[in-house]
């Protein structure tokens, strides 16, 4: 067991790949066996993160030269590893009833996406981060293309759009890496931390900001994410939510720990504010419930980026208490928005697939025919709008509290307005709780694996609210400390590497 803990970091990438391979083989025998292998893969990642997943991992001493694909895990990485594993597990459970004979390949792709996303959050150098981002992107696009029922035109077009936008983003990120490599001769994040200054820093940051905004699906680069989230089946929801989580992790790590956020904070606040506001405002004129859910998830990503920018700005001003509060709020909102965003997307998808229409103007009174889906949808909407005691309330309260404490009145007002606007734009709730539609529908309520997945998400949404204080102390606060420490990340990595080298010498 000690050996497993010592090699926990590479295992967190390898375990999903092995589980995917196993799922592909078992899928030929029984679909549920393939699903069990995939869930075991996701569970093993969480177990590894809990047991020994902190510190650094380098291979063959290349790290002394600033080369090689090293892995590094701290409190920030751990939060995202848990989020990714949870999203994957829910996706696998939800899809049990829909993927049928394609289950082996489908679960294999889910696990490949998880391995890529884990690679993103554990990468110790920028090149590995980019490679992992692309691995996750290609697997996610393939999942969207396969869709819930396989090869529908809308799903294929959404996948093609995700690939096209992903290629532009990928090119921008690689160009940024090439600039950094030209100037410093390394892409190791620990060695690059705080080393880029002047015009080089501006060019590196601009290319990365554009690339990561595209990958995350922030406004005005959100088109692919909306289409992916609207595609049939849970893969679209997983792609949209996990792409947001990976993009936000990359923004956190690179802008806070490598570049230094004090100069980047206004850029983050600007992008975040536009996405937060636009993501809600565009839903007012729309009646498509799946599109509304997708736009809300874009808005929540914007809120997180805005809070990160606020945290960076306040830390630069020396208001460490308010900065820490904003960052804790942002990290908690990553957890919350993943849970209620996934729930919202899945319940909206249930309308599309069961009621035969996704336009709220044609629907109404689905709470009579789909009571379970109505409850899950209401739960997601209430948490999203920040109703206590659900998780969304506490994270948004933290962010608004930080804005007030830091006297950032405009940001605070925007956060309050965005949360209030979500109440008014609940097109989906009209479909569930509005007047009973005169158009007869043969809507079937969610059941079986889909019900189990949505039930798990509902418990998570409630649990994130009830245990918010514990989560803030145990998970969010240490992660916020990593961000607050800024470019002293270099010392943390060096210390972790020397600790690892000492323990390996001792082992010999």
């Amino acid at each position, binding site marked *: 067991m000690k050996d497993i803990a010592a090699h926990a970091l590479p295992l967190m990438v390898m375990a999903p790949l092995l589980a995917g391979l196993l799922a592909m083989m078992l899928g030929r025998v029984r679909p549920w066996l393939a699903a069990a292998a995939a869930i075991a893969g996701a569970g093993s990642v969480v177990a590894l993160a809990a047991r020994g997943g902190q510190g650094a991992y380098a291979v063959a001493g290349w790290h002394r030269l600033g080369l090689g694909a090293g892995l590094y895990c701290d409190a920030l990485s751990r939060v995202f590893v848990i989020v990714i594993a949870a999203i994957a597990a829910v996706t696998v459970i939800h899809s049990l009833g829909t993927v049928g004979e394609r289950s082996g390949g489908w679960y294999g792709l889910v696990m490949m996406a998880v391995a890529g996303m884990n690679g993103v959050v554990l990468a110790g150098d920028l090149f590995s981060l980019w490679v992992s981002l*692309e691995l996750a992107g290609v697997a996610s696009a393939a999942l969207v293309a396969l869709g819930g029922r396989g090869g529908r035109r809308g799903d294929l077009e959404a996948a093609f759009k995700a690939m096209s936008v992903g290629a532009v983003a990928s090119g921008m990120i690689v160009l940024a890496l090439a600039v950094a490599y030209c100037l410093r001769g390394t892409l190791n994040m620990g060695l690059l931390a705080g080393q880029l200054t002047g015009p080089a820093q501006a060019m590196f940051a601009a290319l990365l900001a554009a690339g990561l905004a595209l990958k995350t699906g922030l406004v005005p680069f959100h088109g692919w994410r909306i*289409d992916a989230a609207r595609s049939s089946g849970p893969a679209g929801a997983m792609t949209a939510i996990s792409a947001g989580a990976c993009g936000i992790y990359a923004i956190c790590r690179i802008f806070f720990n490598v570049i230094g956020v004090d100069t980047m904070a206004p850029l983050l606040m600007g992008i975040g504010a536009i996405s937060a506001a636009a993501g809600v405002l565009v839903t007012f004129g729309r009646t498509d419930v799946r599109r509304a859910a997708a736009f809300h998830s874009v808005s929540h990503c914007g809120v997180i980026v805005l809070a990160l920018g606020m945290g960076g700005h306040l830390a630069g001003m020396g208001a460490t208490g308010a900065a820490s509060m904003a960052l804790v709020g942002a990290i908690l909102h990553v957890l919350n928005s993943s849970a209620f965003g996934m729930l919202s997307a899945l319940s909206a998808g249930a309308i599309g697939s069961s009621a035969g229409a996704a336009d709220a103007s044609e629907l109404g009174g689905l709470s009579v025919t789909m009571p379970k889906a109505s409850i899950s949808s209401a739960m997601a909407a209430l948490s999203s709008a920040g109703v206590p005691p659900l998780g969304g309330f506490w994270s948004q309260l933290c962010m608004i509290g930080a804005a007030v404490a830091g006297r950032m009145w405009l940001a605070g007002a925007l956060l309050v307005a965005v949360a209030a606007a979500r109440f008014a734009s609940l097109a989906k709730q009209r479909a569930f709780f509005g007047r009973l539609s005169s158009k007869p529908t043969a809507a079937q309520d969610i059941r079986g694996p889909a019900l189990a997945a949505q039930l798990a998400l509902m418990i998570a949404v409630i649990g994130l609210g009830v245990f918010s204080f514990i989560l803030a102390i145990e998970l969010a606060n240490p992660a916020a400390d990593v961000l607050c420490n800024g470019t002293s990340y270099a010392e943390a990595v060096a210390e972790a590497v020397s600790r690892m080298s000492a323990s390996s010498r001792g082992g010999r």
Partner: protein
Amino acid sequence: MIPYLAAVILFAVGVFAIVSGRGRHKAIIGMGLVHFAAALVFCLAGWRTGGEPPLVTSESWEATSRAVASGSEAATIHDPTAQAMAAMVILIGTAMTVLAAAIHSKLQTLSNDDEGGPSEEATS
């Protein structure tokens, strides 16, 4: 400077081919161009004027050892790490292009009246 300019032009043409919306086949070519441009920049990042290929042979090893022992400057070699990263960029770019081409091919075989309805599903 000219190779860097060529990379920038290649990248711009690739991005234009993707975002102009003039057909999926042009977007696929654009995806390839964007990654080739990025790979070119990486190759240039590892380029050393007058450099030797980064291959260790017994002759080059002895020559380097003699140069180091005598205190004279060792022969410059091109950076192999940058070349390895350029190869990886080409590999990933090719994988993305192939997947996009497969999706395009599948889309072409579907007619508008297939399950899933018209193509407006995926427009924003």
